[in-house]
């Protein structure tokens, strides 16, 4: 920690200069790229201007009095203290103003709630601390599911290397959506409440465990739109970006086809023969994206909450126990269930990895097919 502090303070001057040069002065809400986001922006500006006008009037009168009616200028106080007429006026006028804003807002709101006629549906599931996207389809075999993890390197976060321009806002696999298509989202969560937000789409909806929420969007322009989880969801709430890549419908179809293909390949991969070295290699990358946030890259954990895996008797003990805790987590602790989060291949890989990395050297391995059997058995 002290070293971090030192490095932080050394980096400070450089950072100051560097960051001031960047475009970091955005004052207002972006207008976004959907019709809804434009309406929202307009409502925002309307309300803002109403407030500014009222503010100017009210503070105007106040500053005028402060200037003119001050004792040092010889002002003598009047003693009026009531007037039903003005009081009525300043009750009714604001009420009317509010009524105007309210009506307009109610229309926009109704529009936001209308999820009918969606052309496709994506399920968004929040996990501590990643998103899972599932492109629903009537045919389960063509469903595409993947996780979207933050791609920013922890070294950047810990100020060990320079930060890239999309610092904290980059993911390994973005959600890809077609433009001009009404996309419905179903949002839910696997653990705590998260909130899925993309400012450019003006979509923000909480992902609540056990309850499903709906939202929708039609993106007008292709592009990459970035957002973040906006509901406090624990330790890494700040490291849970959302990235949506809007592409033309044709590109989207192509992408989807590739993804479906990958899913098929994954199934094949599970059945394939795996060598220890392959599993170790894959395991390392799985470990670093899925486990390292708690157990640390070097397996040293973070006492007392997060146990070390390096040298752990548990990890080096009965392999079934290890697989079990990875698949099912531990209720009542922070250890999540990875059953739905990791493929059989990845589960096998990470199990093999933690049992053999950092000098754990148990020497055995587990194959994806074994995992498939264990899952089927439970």
């Amino acid at each position: 920690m002290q070293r971090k502090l030192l490095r932080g303070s050394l980096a400070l001057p450089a950072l100051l200069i560097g960051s001031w040069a960047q475009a970091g002065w955005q004052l207002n809400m972006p207008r976004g790229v959907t019709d809804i986001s434009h309406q929202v922006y307009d409502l925002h500006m309307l309300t803002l201007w109403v407030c500014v006008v009222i503010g100017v009037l009210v503070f105007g009168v106040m500053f005028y009095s402060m200037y003119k009616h001050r004792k040092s200028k010889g002002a003598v106080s009047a003693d009026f203290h009531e007037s039903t007429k003005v009081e009525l006026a300043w009750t009714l006028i604001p009420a009317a103003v509010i009524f105007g804003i309210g009506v307009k807002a109610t229309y926009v709101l109704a529009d936001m709630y209308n999820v009918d006629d969606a052309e496709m549906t994506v399920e968004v599931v929040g996990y501590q601390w990643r998103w899972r996207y599932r492109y629903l389809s009537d045919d389960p075999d063509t469903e595409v599911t993947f996780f979207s993890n933050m791609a920013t390197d922890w070294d950047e976060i810990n100020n060990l290397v320079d930060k890239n321009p999309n610092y904290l806002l980059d993911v390994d696999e973005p959600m890809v959506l077609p433009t001009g298509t009404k996309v419905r989202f179903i949002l839910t969560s696997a653990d705590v409440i998260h909130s899925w937000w993309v400012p450019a789409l003006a979509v923000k909806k909480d992902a609540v465990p056990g309850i499903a929420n709906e939202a929708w969007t039609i993106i007008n322009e292709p592009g990459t739109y970035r957002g973040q989880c906006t509901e406090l969801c624990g330790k890494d709430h700040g490291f849970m970006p959302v990235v949506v890549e809007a592409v033309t419908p044709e590109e989207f179809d192509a992408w989807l086809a590739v993804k479906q293909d990958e899913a098929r390949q994954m199934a094949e991969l599970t059945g394939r023969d795996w060598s220890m070295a392959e599993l170790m290699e894959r395991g390392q990358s799985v470990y670093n994206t899925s486990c390292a946030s708690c157990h640390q890259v070097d397996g040293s954990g973070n006492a007392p909450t997060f146990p070390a895996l390096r040298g752990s008797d548990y990890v080096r003990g009965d392999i079934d126990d290890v697989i079990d805790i990875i698949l099912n987590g531990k209720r009542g602790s922070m250890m999540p269930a990875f059953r739905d989060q990791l493929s059989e291949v990845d589960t096998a890989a990470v199990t093999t990895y933690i049992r053999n990395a950092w000098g754990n050297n148990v020497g055995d391995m587990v194959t994806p097919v074994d995992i498939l059997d264990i899952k089927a058995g439970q």
Partner: protein
Amino acid sequence: MTTATHDHDHDHDHHGPAKGITRWLYTTNHKDIGTMYLWFSFAMFLLGGTFAMVIRAELFQPGLQLVSPEFFNQMTTMHGLVMVFGAVMPAFVGLANWMIPMMIGAPDMALPRMNNLSFWILPFAFALLVSTLFMEGGGPNFGWTFYAPLSTTYAPPSTTYFIFAVHIMGASSIMGAINIVATILNMRAPGMTMMKMPLFVWTWLITSYLLIAVMPVLAGVVTMMLFDIHFATSFFDAAGGGSPILFQHLFWFFGHPEVYIMILPAFGIVSAIIPAFARKPLFGYSSMVYATASIAFLSFIVWGHHMFTVGIPFLGQAFFMWSTMLIAVPTGVKVFNWVTTMFRGSMTFETPMLFALAFVVLFTIGGFSGLMLAVAPVDFQYHDTYFVVAHFHYVLVPGAVFSIMAAVYYWLPKWSGRMYNETMGKVHFWLSFVGVNILFFPQHFLGLAGMPRRIPDYALQFTNFNMISSVGGFLFGLSQLLFLYIVVHTVVAGKKAPAKPWDGAEGLEWTVDSPAPYHTFSTPPKIN
């Protein structure tokens, strides 16, 4: 003193304070208790402020520098809890203790022993709360709104202590509020009719009702948490037919009135100070009373505006939007009344007035952003960003906290019998005023540009305004040490103050000596 039978305790009643520490430990005197509340609240302000400084220091630049994300979350949570329940609420109760009996011509609070109990619970409750930071697994890290299931299934073990701390603190608030209601309804001097009461008394009366109504709901909701954690109930777990959203409904049924609990007494204070320094009676006294009551009433039916994004059905959403926007109307009435009170007055700008004026402007700005938040479809963009943080700090810091500072400057001569140093007061004001705006105004921009709240680290485009905000924060924080100095200096070495140091001030409290005698109005004053 009407009958002879009472005479035996006459002199017992009029002796001064006891000597030594027991004066404070065992006291039943509303002034002593008020003083203890105020000091306690100031200590909590420093503590909560220190937590805020940790937050601002970590957010000074992108990347993790000082604290880990776990600890950052604990800081955010504790900062919110300590400021809300430890600093602002007890400060207002302290002011109520000091001023209400004097303002209505009562000898003391209605139930003096319970009064002391209400106070003494607080140090214990907060000791328990803060001690969770040192427990295994760390302290509460789920925000001051402690949404389930982050605060139940996924919470650290110390949460149980947090829950019990909330329980006893709630008991303290309820007893305090009951005491205030009983005092106001039962202890007014002859002739002090309801519509003659100073607005501070009125606002506190209404605040007390809010407290009595919502603190038990808070107790209820934390009790459900306790059972979900330890006894496998499923209030907040859909697997058993409950819902995490249930938590939020209950919490905000408490939480929204709670934020008005933190502002209504401030309205009362400002309504006392502005007429005093404008030398002109308060404009629209009765509409002030009705407006306060309307705000209190509305506050019970708007809670859903904190939950616009959780997926409330359309009709609910629309209802909460409309009812919330409606609150701007009675609040507007108050603001207009204050401004009209100044209009054609004869104003001077001593420190209390400066704080009160800043209150009017900055609270209104905070109210405006509140109105913007109330527009449900747009709240989808604002919710849980720094725009919200900016909103509530504007109503809470230059709102509630400034009003408390105004009150301290205004009544300190009465409490201590000594005058604060006007120059230092003004320096404190200007530093605070400038600091607070540098601190919180840029947070509007951050929120609009998309920075979520409760994050220990942020994307690069947010760097500039965060740095500015942090600098403002340090400035504002350091200025409060000056406040501490001014108050201590006044109490120890201030110039003697007359009974009525403000020529435009009105009210019974100015009819007694400065410092106010240990017992005032043992014989009620006559009010015409």
